[in-house]
């Protein structure tokens, strides 16, 4: 029986706790009385995923069985989530592959010839062929790529159509092939509550014109948090857009969830609570620490990015998007929810080597902010674990390190925009269009493997709520120049950071450490 998440109070017998530190790890002794929040253990996966998938599409939620929707001569499109999820990438076979194989077999039985498969990457980078193959599997790749398996291009003037405006004036565009299909089947993998539902289509198959309606500072500041859709202006906007899309094209959603078995056996110590570490786990920790302390960043990155996670599928639902997504969120919460009582003055967390936007690339400083102050801070329901005006302490080396192929516009954003201002709203006013419409960024997004020109802004505003909420933000062990450019404070050790934090929150502060990843969602009462 997997254990639920836990809140442990630090006493004299509590061992030092693991902090992720980019491509490294640290053990830190937490002060007496501090809380450590651990994610739940991985749920038992479904024993026979293929059978569960068959069952889901045969008995969908608030929709007809998929088989009845398929007919000879129809134009069918399958869209699927890109490699930004799950993290780390899933060991083959990816659940999206399993779902798509099932759907494709069913379409073949129905005699459908006109079938296209589109990676719904929105304004994310194009995947390499190997990355694409990893998600869809060899059989689909060999059969459909490149003519009928390809990646959405949000900047292709010929292949995006204007759908209309929502009642709130949000413009909606959609991939032309999807818009002109008789049926779009969206195959999703939901790891966190932010993903899935209407957001899949309204970001994955959209263009900047459409996405800017909700990917903006004002909306993000009104999303508290975007990990809890009912309280998220981001999701309200996506839902409005998604409903307009549903008026345009027939959509059938298939959403899957996986457990939080995020680390393979060699990194088992990252998965487990320190009190549960075996001698082998301790040895692996020491070996990892030794290796990461002395190896150059590029070497460490290669080792870490080669990890594939043994995620197991925990749920699959199909049918009408809202009905499906409600069930999906239920399954996600079952895996990642942790009940937490009250907020604290200080929250500590270790930022790991990987976020959704740096697969096979270094986590550049803006992505560190996105991961730490964006995703990890926002993993809450009701209230943040950190009290308003409290201090957030993060560990990450935060080097000036950018991948010129994946993140070209991030370099300019860091060097030019953040040198000018850190204010998300001011940045948006001054720079949004310039980054979005820069012809070179546009070309690199379309033809190379670069994130869209506007993407660094999205990564930055993902942290807007945390930046507004926290009284101070301190990075431990980071490059000082970089941290100052980001507008935060820097400490050499965790002890120093606590001392600095006391100047903001007073003496004897309450402290909580979020021991994540694996992912957890703190339900703060």
């Amino acid at each position, binding site marked *: 029986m997997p254990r639920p998440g836990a809140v442990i109070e630090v006493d004299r017998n509590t061992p030092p706790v693991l902090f992720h530190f980019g491509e490294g790890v640290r053990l830190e002794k937490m002060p007496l009385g501090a809380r450590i929040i651990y994610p739940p253990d991985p749920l038992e996966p479904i024993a026979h995923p293929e059978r569960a998938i068959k069952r889901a599409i045969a008995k969908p939620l608030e929709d007809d069985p998929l088989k009845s929707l398929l007919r000879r001569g129809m134009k069918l499109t399958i869209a699927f989530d890109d490699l930004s999820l799950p993290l780390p990438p899933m060991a083959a076979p990816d659940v999206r592959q399993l779902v798509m194989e099932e759907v494709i077999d069913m379409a073949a039985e129905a005699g459908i010839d006109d079938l296209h498969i589109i990676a719904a990457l929105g304004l994310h980078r194009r995947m390499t062929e190997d990355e694409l193959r990893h998600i869809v599997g060899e059989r689909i790749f060999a059969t459909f790529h490149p003519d009928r398996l390809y990646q959405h291009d949000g900047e292709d003037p010929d292949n995006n159509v204007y759908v209309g405006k929502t009642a709130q004036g949000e413009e909606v565009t959609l991939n032309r092939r999807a818009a002109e299909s008789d049926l779009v089947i969206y195959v999703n993998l939901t790891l966190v509550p932010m993903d899935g539902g209407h957001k899949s289509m309204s970001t994955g198959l959209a263009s900047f014109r459409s996405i800017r309606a909700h990917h903006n500072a004002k909306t993000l500041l009104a999303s508290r948090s975007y990990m809890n859709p009912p309280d998220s202006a981001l999701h309200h906007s996506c839902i409005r857009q998604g409903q307009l899309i549903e008026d345009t094209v027939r959509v059938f959603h298939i959403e899957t969830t996986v457990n939080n078995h995020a680390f393979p056996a060699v990194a088992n110590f990252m998965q487990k609570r320190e009190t549960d570490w075996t001698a082998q786990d301790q040895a692996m920790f020491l070996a990892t620490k030794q290796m990461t302390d002395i190896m150059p960043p590029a070497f460490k990155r290669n080792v870490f990015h080669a990890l594939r996670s043994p995620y197991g599928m925990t749920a699959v639902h199909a049918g009408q998007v809202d009905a499906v997504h409600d069930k999906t969120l239920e399954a996600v919460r079952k895996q990642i929810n942790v009940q937490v009582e009250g907020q604290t003055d200080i929250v500590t967390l270790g930022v790991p080597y990987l976020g959704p936007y740096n697969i096979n690339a270094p986590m550049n400083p803006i992505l560190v902010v996105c991961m730490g102050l964006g995703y990890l801070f926002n993993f809450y329901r009701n209230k943040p674990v950190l009290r308003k005006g409290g201090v957030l302490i993060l560990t990450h080396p935060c080097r000036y390190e950018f991948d010129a192929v994946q993140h070209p516009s991030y370099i*300019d954003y860091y*060097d*030019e925009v953040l040198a000018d201002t850190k204010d998300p709203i001011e940045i948006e006013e001054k720079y949004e269009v310039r980054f979005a419409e820069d012809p*070179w960024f546009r070309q690199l997004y379309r033809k190379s493997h670069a994130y869209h020109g506007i993407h660094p802004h999205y990564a930055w505003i993902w942290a807007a709520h945390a930046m507004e909420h926290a009284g101070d933000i301190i990075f431990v062990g980071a490059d000082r120049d970089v941290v100052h450019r980001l507008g935060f404070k820097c400490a050499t050790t965790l002890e120093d950071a606590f001392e600095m934090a006391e100047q903001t929150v007073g003496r004897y502060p309450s402290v909580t450490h979020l021991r994540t990843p694996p992912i957890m969602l703190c339900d703060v009462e």
Partner: protein
Amino acid sequence: MLKLGDVPEPELPAAGWVRVMPNVSGICGSDLAAISGHVSLYLDPLTSYPFVPGHEVVGALDDGTRVVIEPALGCIVRGIDPPCPRCAEGRPGLCYNVTEGPIEVGLQTGYCADTGGGWGEVLVAHPSQVHPVPETLSDEAAVLIEPLACCVHAALRGGATKDDIVVVSGAGTIGLLTVAAVKLFTPPKRLIAIAKHPTQADLARKLGADQVVKPADVFQRIRFATAARRLEGMNRPLLLGGADVTFECVGRADSLNDAVRFTREGGTVVAVGMPGEEKVDWAPIWQRELTVTGAYAYGAEPKRKGRKTFDLALEAAPEMHLEDLTGPLFGLGEYRDAIAYAMSAGRLGAVKVAFDLRRLRA
């Protein structure tokens, strides 16, 4: 070979010439190139030896009038009438009579055996070469009038418009004064300076640069500023698109090769800093149909109704706080230290290292 010693005072070569007693005399990049042996041999036959260096000079006439020297030794200075076509156009820096007249061969005071130079106690000058200095301009500021005039001339040669994105490569004396001159005389849409050292970067901003970038970031920054496209070459990147006008104020191969790759197709590269014999890839110049133009010295500016560059510089100088750029000052006896300092000026946080000759007279 550079030597400190007593030499006979230069004789007045013709009637009307005047004696000038230097107050402050700058050490120019061209002086350093000559001393260190990096100067182009092209200039050798245009120079007469031995000479007293120093062409950035503020000094005093016998009657005490403070003046700056316009060093070009063209037809008027040499008493040649009618003047050569270039001098007739008001471009004495391009004079082809620099071997003629009552003085020895030489392009400028400070490179001519008969005129003396700023690094001595006395030099001689034709009346057309001397420009009175306003009371409000200190010697430390006035010593920069000559290089400022060069830069004003360069700015006008570059002819940037208000829609242009301009890059000034290099932030030594010439680079910084070019920034100031471009900002004042041909203000562009955006002025980007390339500066290696922190002090240079600060000064470039003060003098009017909208943005200052490090040499290592040149392609990244200029690409973004111009919304160009960047391609990675085998040896260095290139931009498709780029700066409209580039003022190259370094004169070294690296900087020149960068300039012709980040200046847009059909754009203009103005060579302002004195180059030597540098290896430059001409392919970008050819393929991008660049206009590569030199900007040497000064004269009369057709784009300013024929007004003399020196007058334009003297008018502009009081607002520029040029004295902030001058120093440290050395005595002639400290010439080794002075030159060593000037060789590393940027790294040491200095711009214009100069000799202070007022102490000699005191």
